[in-house]
């Protein structure tokens, strides 16, 4: 048994190399997408969780007011919908659009949320709760929905960027 002094360390290094190879295989070994910042604009179908937008890198300057109603809401002139940043989570991007009436947050819609067998389920379960929390808190300071930690974090981040953009 003394013959195998470093065997455990070698097994570990081998395992690590194997796991990394599996991860590369899983993600196709592609370079990370350098997606151009997407403008959350008229293409925002509320509640579309299948959004293919994906961004990376520094906060994208896409927290613009919705161009369909530039600066204004449909009926009330003080109602405006602001698209938030795309927030990256391990399961995919999260992005929201926040509707303000005056300075009040009246609605939050999910522009995109992670997709996948479980992720979609988690998103479907958590985003209505998160929207409700934002409306009642009137801020991005909301509790994490249990079981949707990363979605909650991304949600917070995107809501905050929309609030910041609204100023």
């Amino acid at each position, binding site marked *: *048994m*003394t*013959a*195998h*002094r470093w*065997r*455990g*360390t070698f*097994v*570990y290094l081998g*395992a*690590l190399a194997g*796991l*990394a190879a*599996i*991860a590369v295989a*899983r*993600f*196709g070994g*592609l370079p*990370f*997408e350098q997606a151009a910042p997407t403008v959350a604009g008229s293409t925002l179908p509320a509640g579309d969780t299948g959004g293919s937008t*994906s961004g*990376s890198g520094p906060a994208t300057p896409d927290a613009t007011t919705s161009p369909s109603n530039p600066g204004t809401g449909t009926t009330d002139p003080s109602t405006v919908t602001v698209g938030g940043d795309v927030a*990256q*989570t*391990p*399961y*995919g*991007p999260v992005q929201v659009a926040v509707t303000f009436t005056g300075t009040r947050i009246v609605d939050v819609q999910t522009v995109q949320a*992670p*997709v*996948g*067998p*479980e*992720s979609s*389920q*988690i998103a479907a*379960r958590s985003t209505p709760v998160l929207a409700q929390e934002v409306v009642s808190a009137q801020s991005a300071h909301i509790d*994490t929905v*249990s*079981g*949707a*930690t*990363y979605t909650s*974090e991304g949600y917070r*981040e995107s809501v905050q960027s929309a609030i910041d953009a609204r100023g």
Partner: protein
Amino acid sequence: MSTITPPRPSPGTEQPGRAAAPDRPGSLALRALLALAVVAVTVFWWTGTPSGTGTTPGGAVTALGELTGLVASVLVCAQVLLTGRVPWFERSVGLDRLVSWHRTLGTSVVLLVLTHVLLMVLGGALLSRNALWSQAVTIVTTQPEMLSAVAGTVLFVLVGATSARLLRASLSYEAWFVVHLSVYLGIYLTFGHQIAAGAHFVGDPAARLVWILLYAGTAAALLTWRVVLPLADVARHAPRVTAVVPEAGGMTSVWVSGSGLGDLGATAGQFFLVRFLVRGHLVSAHPYSVSAARTGDHLRFTIGALGDHSRAVARLRPGTRVLLEGPFGRFTAARARRRGVLLIAGGAGVGPVRALAEELRLRGHDVVVVHRARSAADLGLGGELAAEGIDYRPVVGRRSELGHDPLDAGHLVALVPDLERRDVFVCGPPGMVATVVRSARAAGVPRSAVHHEELSLS
């Protein structure tokens, strides 16, 4: 020499040439099973990880961290089962090799767990653009069951560190063992966060159930084979020390008897984990080999004064209760393929060699015993071996006095010229065993005919 008359041994009927081959397939099967478990958990990770995860460095690192955690977790269960005295593992692999695998895997598991933690923090930091330390704080404060995961991981690291050669050498066996036992608590503590925070479990009740069953199954195996059955054996056989006999060279023979002990099926060359239920011996069980063959409901252990506990054995009193786990080991007469056998004993290895010599002779083998000792006074059990009608060749003297190692290839062949045609059994301190294995191979004995047992599990 003792108050117990062993039942008259009956000559064996087995054909020496047709003894069972070592159970290679079983040990291959166990390795395959382990590999299969790792593959299964990888597939589970693969299918449950959305491709989009990999589009950012942070996402990819987090996903890799999850895979590392999942694999580490499966290996933790493997670790516990490897030392869990699962009968099928014992029979097909043998306790000594299981423990050796456990040591190798233990190092890997501790390092994998640390990698998991590092990747989870790093991945999260990349995603949130936090500093590493503040991301670590965020994880611990916002994710469920994380404090206990950290505590459990600290125990893992402690267990790993105390098992590392450097630290282990400066700890007594008992101190190391007590620290090592805390790993059970560590495993319990880290379980919660896996199903409460793990992205692959939170939204998936079926996966959660499988994971809970994996851990519950491991716990059940542990309870069955490490607690319930050994205690049931003790209740049934009520083994006690019946005689304590001093031997030459400071060794002590301890006879343990109990009704129906013979049913345990111990054969020459096997060992038990022995715990004498008396103050000073309670904390840990020590491996000791049986030193007499075919003794029915009586077992004899011959114990060399190698350390504090083995020395204290000389002061045991008849009547002392004994906890026995076993028998273990595949260093048995069934391994011999040829009629001619050479047994080489060193130090406390003379116990199992004495039992094997007797068993092999009864099975009709031509037995040569080489007994290695520092001086003639250290040839414990030598009298018994010489009286057996066995070709007994004591080899005494320190290597420094002799100016050579009498067990190196040249001297061993000079001592036993037909060495090449014999099965070789060697039992003793690890260094001596290694020398003999090298010499026998150099003399042309095939690997399958060299059988060895080191008197050390650590």
